[in-house]
Structures are given as C-alpha cells and as structure tokens.
C-alpha cells in the first residue's frame, strides 16, 4: 500500500497559541522536550549559576541524604524569584541532567508537591524538582548563551501576550531566529516544534527563500536541521522539494551527505530515485547509504540497480542491498535475492541473501 501524504488544512490548529497563554501550572513533560515545551511546561524557568551540583539534604526518615543541586538565580524568565538568591532543587528522571560547579545553565522546574516519587522531600524544605534529563540539559556556553536565553525569553514573552495574532508573530520571530542561528540544538528544537504545530504559520511562504538560503543550503547549519527543515517545508507544501533534495544530494559533502542520502530516500521522486541509483555506483560509504535509502516499496523501480549492487566489491554495500531488496519485497526483488543466494561468488552474500529469502517466506 502506498503511503499518502495528508493535505493539511490551514485552520484550527492555530488554537495552539492558546497553550502559551494558559500553560502556567501545566505539567506536560515530553520525553525529549523541545525548548518551547520546556518553557510552556514549567512553572519556574531560570538562568542560574550552579553553586554545588552534588549538594544533599538530610533525610530524617532514613538517616541518609538525597542529592540536590544548589544554584544562584541570575535571571527569572518565567515564574517568581529574585536574582542573586540561592535556589535548591532535586533532580528526578531517567539519566538526570548533571552539572559541574560554576556551570551557567537554564533550568526548568516544577513544584515538588506534584512529584509522586519525591514529594516527601518537602519535609527537608525543598520546593522544586527538575525533570531535565541528559538531552534536555541546557548548560550555557559563551557561544550558546545569547541564543538560548533569547529564545527562552521569547517563548515566555509570547505566552504572556493576550492577543493571538501578536503571539503568532512573536513565535514566528523566535522560530526563524532559532532556525537561522547556526546552533544545531536550537535549530533541531525549532524544527520539532514546527512539525508538531501542524499548519500553524510559524513559517510562511515569505520566509522560504531565506530559510532555503540560510539553512537548507547553508553549510553553517547542522545537517539534521537542514534536512529536517526541508522535510517540513515539503510537508507544508511550501517548496517544490524534489529539486531541492536532488540539489542537496549533489552538493553536500561527506559526512553530511550520508544523512542527506538517508533522508532523501524517504522523499521519493523520480529525481531523487535517479540520483540515489547513480550514487549506488560510488566506491565509498555513500553507495551503502544509497542502497539503504532505496529500501522502500516506493523505490521498487530501483530493484535492477540494487540487484547490480549485489555485485559490489564492498561487502557493506552488498549487505545493504540485500536489506533493501527484502524491504521492497516485490517478485523482482525476491528473484534478485534468490539469484544471489544461489550463485553469488561470495559465500557471506549467498548466506545473507538466502536468509533474507527465508525471512520473506515468514512475513505476511
């Protein structure tokens, strides 16, 4: 069955903006949260300096101690607090964020009373808990400080604006700033929020030339942001994406090219397909990536090229081609696998192809 891309209507999702006005007291903590979701989902957002990341509080009940973090407030971006004052919080989660003394950080805190696991720590005088984990830790560096703080301030300020259109414009400004910041993490966060926002006009047709020039085609942007943004612009039908994918395939250098190849395979078009097939002939890891990228029924026309790739002198390319032929799973793909299983000169290739044929017989 062919996957069809939904035609998203530009309508009601705009109510998304209401969330920013009404999020105080909300406790929606996403796994791998974006910066926006961290700001909207926290009661206290603060720029802090870490005083003691390995402090602890005494626990009367056990006679033991619980690790906590002591920080000095530098700026309160959301919630209440006084710069210069000390703040203590517990950490809880699966791989909690870790700091060293002197770190400048952006912390996102929730009332401890809401933590089923740690509420008892209130008895030790604590009020706050951070659910930040490894990938939601924001330690500020000279390079990232300005961008991260500006974005957090922008998101918090947008949430305080009473008028919807003003909030859209404010968020659009923050989104564009993050996407064009050159900061891989901020850019990825913005792309994920764009994706989750449906058709909310956080980018518009007017922004596309700048985004293509400063992000998608820019070597200063991280490759994840470049391809993630292009995929999102394609989903929003703001660009004719096939020529852009093809241009990226032709212009990107390694190692980023490997990610482009992987991503392009999920955006099939005659141009992309032809370029990936062409890349199968290269004598480096790009050939392997291309073989993997073609592993989708949407690339069924590439079976002859993948069958040819089974003769590559690179073992990883042969194995990738076998995987993809197994995923395409058309009769022609199965014929190619059976031929390799029977007659390929390399025993490992014969064995793996035969295994893939057996896999085919087990699948519905």
């Amino acid at each position, binding site marked *: 069955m062919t996957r069809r891309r939904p035609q998203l209507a530009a309508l009601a999702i705009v109510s998304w903006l209401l969330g920013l006005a009404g999020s105080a*007291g909300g406790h929606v903590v996403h*796994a791998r949260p974006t910066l926006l979701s961290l700001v909207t989902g926290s009661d206290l957002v603060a720029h802090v300096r870490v005083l003691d990341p390995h402090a602890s509080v005494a626990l009367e009940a*056990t006679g033991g101690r619980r*690790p906590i973090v002591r920080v000095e407030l530098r700026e309160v971006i959301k919630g209440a607090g006084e710069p210069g004052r000390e703040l203590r919080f517990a950490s809880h989660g699966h791989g909690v964020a870790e700091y060293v003394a002197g770190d400048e950080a952006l912390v996102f805190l929730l009332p401890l009373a809401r933590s089923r696991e740690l509420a008892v720590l209130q008895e030790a005088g604590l009020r706050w808990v951070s659910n930040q984990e*490894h990938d939601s830790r924001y330690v500020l560096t000279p390079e990232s400080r300005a961008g991260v703080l500006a974005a957090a301030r922008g998101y918090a300020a947008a949430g305080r604006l009473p008028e919807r259109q003003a909030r859209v414009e404010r968020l659009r400004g923050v989104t564009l700033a993050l996407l064009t910041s050159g900061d891989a993490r901020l850019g990825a966060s913005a792309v994920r929020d764009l994706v989750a926002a449906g058709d909310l006009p956080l980018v518009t047709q007017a922004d596309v030339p700048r985004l293509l020039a400063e992000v998608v085609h820019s070597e200063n942007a991280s490759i994840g942001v470049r391809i993630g943004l292009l995929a999102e612009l394609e989903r929003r039908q703001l660009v004719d994406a096939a020529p852009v994918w093809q241009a990226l395939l032709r212009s990107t250098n390694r190692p980023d090219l490997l*990610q482009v190849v992987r991503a392009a395979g999920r955006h099939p078009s005659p141009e992309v397909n032809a370029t990936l097939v062409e890349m199968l002939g290269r004598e480096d*890891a790009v050939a392997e990536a291309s073989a993997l990228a073609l592993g989708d029924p949407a690339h069924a026309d590439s079976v002859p090229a993948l069958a040819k790739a089974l003769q590559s002198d690179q073992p990883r390319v042969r194995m990738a081609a076998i995987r993809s032929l197994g995923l395409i799973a058309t009769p022609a793909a199965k014929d190619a696998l059976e031929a390799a299983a029977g007659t390929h000169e390399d025993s490992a290739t014969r064995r793996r192809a035969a295994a*893939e044929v*057996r896999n085919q017989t087990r699948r519905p």
Partner: protein
Amino acid sequence: MTLASSFRLSWRRALSIGLAVSSIALMGNVCSGPTFRAGVCVRDITPVTPGLAAAYEAEFGESAVVNHTDPVFIAGFGDNRAATGYHDRLWARGLVVDGYGGRIAIVALDLVGYLNGEVDTIRSLLSAESGVDYVVVHSTHQHEGPDTIGIWGADSLTSGIDFGYLDFVNDAVAACIDEAAANLEPARVKFATTDSVGLSLALDVEDDGQGVSDGKVLVDDDLIAPETDGRIVDSRLSIMQVTRRGPPHEVMATLVNFASHPESLGSNNTLISADFPHYARQHIEEAIGGMAIWVSGDLGVLQGPLDLDVLDPLTNQPAVRRTFRWAQVHGEQLADRVLSAIPDKPGNPVAIIRVATSKPVPVRLDNPYFRFFIAIGVLNPRLSLFTDGLPDDSVGTPFPPPFDVIPQALGEDLHTEVGAFRINEASFAVVPSELDPQIGETYRAAMTGAEHTFIIGLGNDEIGYQLPAPKWDDSCHACAPFILGGVPQLCPLYPNIDCNTVFQNNVGADVDPSISEAMFPILAELH
C-alpha cells in the same frame, strides 16, 4: 499458533520418562534422548569504528576489526552521546541446551535492545545442522553501548543506527549459536534462587535496601506496597548453572537473571561498557570459571540502580554514584550473592525441555505520538504496521475537528512474539518488553510447580514498557491531539496529564493485555 503442540509428548509423561531415564543415566548409562548436553559460545560485538580502532587496541591489547562507522552514538539516555573510547567489551554470550523434548539457544547481547526483524534474520542465518528448536536473543538493555534501535542519533532528527553493524551482530550471533550447537557435550544443569536484598544502603528516599530501586511509582502502587510508599521491585536473582558431566564438574556457564537496568554509569559517560553486569560476570568467572551470562529480567517500569547507594569495601563509605567504581562494587556484590547461592552438588545430567511460543502477537499501537511521527516520516519503525494481519502503511487525519489536520499512521498494530520454556524444575518466560515486576509475578505464579522461575526481558524484541493495564494512565495519549496541537489546557483531563516517559514512549494500553493473553496460554501449556 504455538510450537508446543508440535511436541507430542505430554509434559507429565515426559517428566515420568525423564525421571526414569534420569535414574538410568545416574547409573552411568548414556541415553541420547534425555541426556542433557550443552554448548557455550561467545562473540565480541564491541562496536569498532575507524576512529576508535586505535583506542580499542590500546585498551584491550588486540587489533580490532572495524564493524561500525564513525561515530558510535551511545543509546539509552539521550541524543548525541558519541562514544570516545572503551572501558570494557560488549559481548554476545550464548548457551545451547539440549535435552529430551527440544534444543534451545539463549544468547544475551550487551545492547540496549534488538528488534524482532533482526532476530528473524539471525534465525534465518542459522545452519540447518544447529537443530535449534527455539532461539532466544536477549538484550541486557545496557545504556552504555551503541544505538541499535535508531533513536539516539546526533539529534532528534537523525538516526544513530548503523545497519552494517547490525549485519555484523546478526552474523556473530548466528555463528555463535552454530558453534555452540556443534560442540554440544554431556553436561549437568542445576538451578538456584536468591535475592539482592540488603545490597543497597537505603539512604535515599527511593532506596529501600533491595539492591534495586523503582524509578516510577504507578497509581495505586502505594496501596499494594504501603511500607515503601508504592515502590515495588523484583529483587530476585535466578541462576542456572551448567557444568561438565564428569568430575570435577567444571563450570561451563552460569546464567544470572536479575531485574535492573544496567545504567549505573549514567548519561555523562562516553566510554563503551556493559555496565555493572561486566563486573558481575568477571567476578563470577574469576571465582568459578566458565562463562557468565547476564540476563535482565522484569526491569520495567524503570527498575534500576540510579538512586541506590552501595558500600565500597575499600573506603567503608558509599561508593560515588555514576562511576565505574560504583558499577564494580554493585556488580561484585551481586556476583557474591550468586556464588553463595549455587548449591555445591552436581547438577542433573538429564533434562526435560519443553518449548511453547506464540508468533505473531499483534499489539495495538495506541500511541498517537508514535503514529504522528511515523506519519510524517520522522520515526521509521522499520517494521510495518499491520491491519487484519497485513502490512498497512497508510496515513490519515482521524482526529475530530479542530484537530483533523494532525496526520496519523493508520495501521492498527505491530507484531511481536512471546515464548516460554521449561528445563526440569525451572521455568522461563520470554517477553519482548520492559516488563513491570508486578506482571512478572503473575507469570511466575502461572509457572505451577516450577521451583525456579526466570523472566527473560527484552527477549527477541524490544517494544518498550509493559505495565499492568489497571495502572495505565491514559491521560498523555488521550490528550495527544491537544498536546500535539499545543493546547493541553483544553483537554478535559488537564492538569492531570502524566507524560512521563513510561506513558509517552509506550506502544499503549494494549501492550499488557496482548502480551499476557499470548503468554498465559503457553505457560498453561507447559505447567
């Protein structure tokens, strides 16, 4: 469809014959049917990249075969944790056991998880001569090794998986099983059960001195376990030891089953390691020889070591958390418990083995976030969704207005498998999930008559958390259109929305009913 039906002998009759033959075998007769035979194998599956090959050689004194591209993204905690070197090697450790009724291969991988499609490929790669009736590929779920699932790459937009490495692992595991099966030898098997109670110091609010802690308290857990404020863990250490048949009964393998995430090193570590099971295995092997195999059990929901304190015998102080020293102290303490529990008598030279499996097991995909990310191509499950048993990759916008602009993958379910087997007085359940210990207890209760019970978690797949259906908090999924749409406060359940990773990164409320409905009949068939 179950495999058990293909074994024509009833368990009761097999047992009686086995006991009879056991007596004969003990008198020195060798009978190829019920005689227990075993073979072991090991393969180094440490990911080695061009950039890390020198580090591998420097650390282990051996040249390395490059099997992975640069970089190795470490799985388990978050994005963009690239490995910078090695602390200890990752292994595939295999045991093939053969007795009256069947031949089973158990291979434990020092990996975060291994998906069912790859397990199928391993099975397809096995030689016909191996004659294995049932293959169990288990992942310890350690959090200091390569991304084999694909969701811990450079950022949340790119994958961390290297398929060439998966091909390497598949070959290694299949070759390992073939080797062990080809080298079966007369052996003995014995079992023991102990626990980890008292191995942690109970200094923290989340540590009850059980040697493992509960990182996520579910609703009403406090009613079940009021004495621990709802913290419920499985501290059982189940042990199977295989020795050579004749005196001095040299140890061939010691398999340890324990329900705790191997993640004590935390999220800042960038050295590849098997975590505390490395030290536990090493300690066991140094003490009694043979190969130690670590098998993680019902370690969900978030059963683990992160909030424990353990006493370092060198300093007589609590070891510093998130360090290799902590992992060493914990691992060696667990190993000492294991060593002291193994009975000092020869094991049984005969074995009655029975196997029952169920595949495919459809599990309804309820998670609207997964459906959303699959629909937009960010999450590529590599395994199709299915509707009425057939692959279904369709996409639509099923939410009612005003959320009918949010795309969703429409396939109804994903497919996985479950299994169970018996070896003499021991019984094993093989689950594809991170199983909550409360459910694990119900499986053990269904193992009627078994003296020793094992739960092999993350067996032949990794589909995430499996928690009791009554404790499923649907707020995160039910409010998904509001959350994806950015208006959580408009959801009727607001503000009581729990999007803890246990609920958000979960296939859905149907996991436990589906897995348990498949598991209980095959357990009943075996007991």
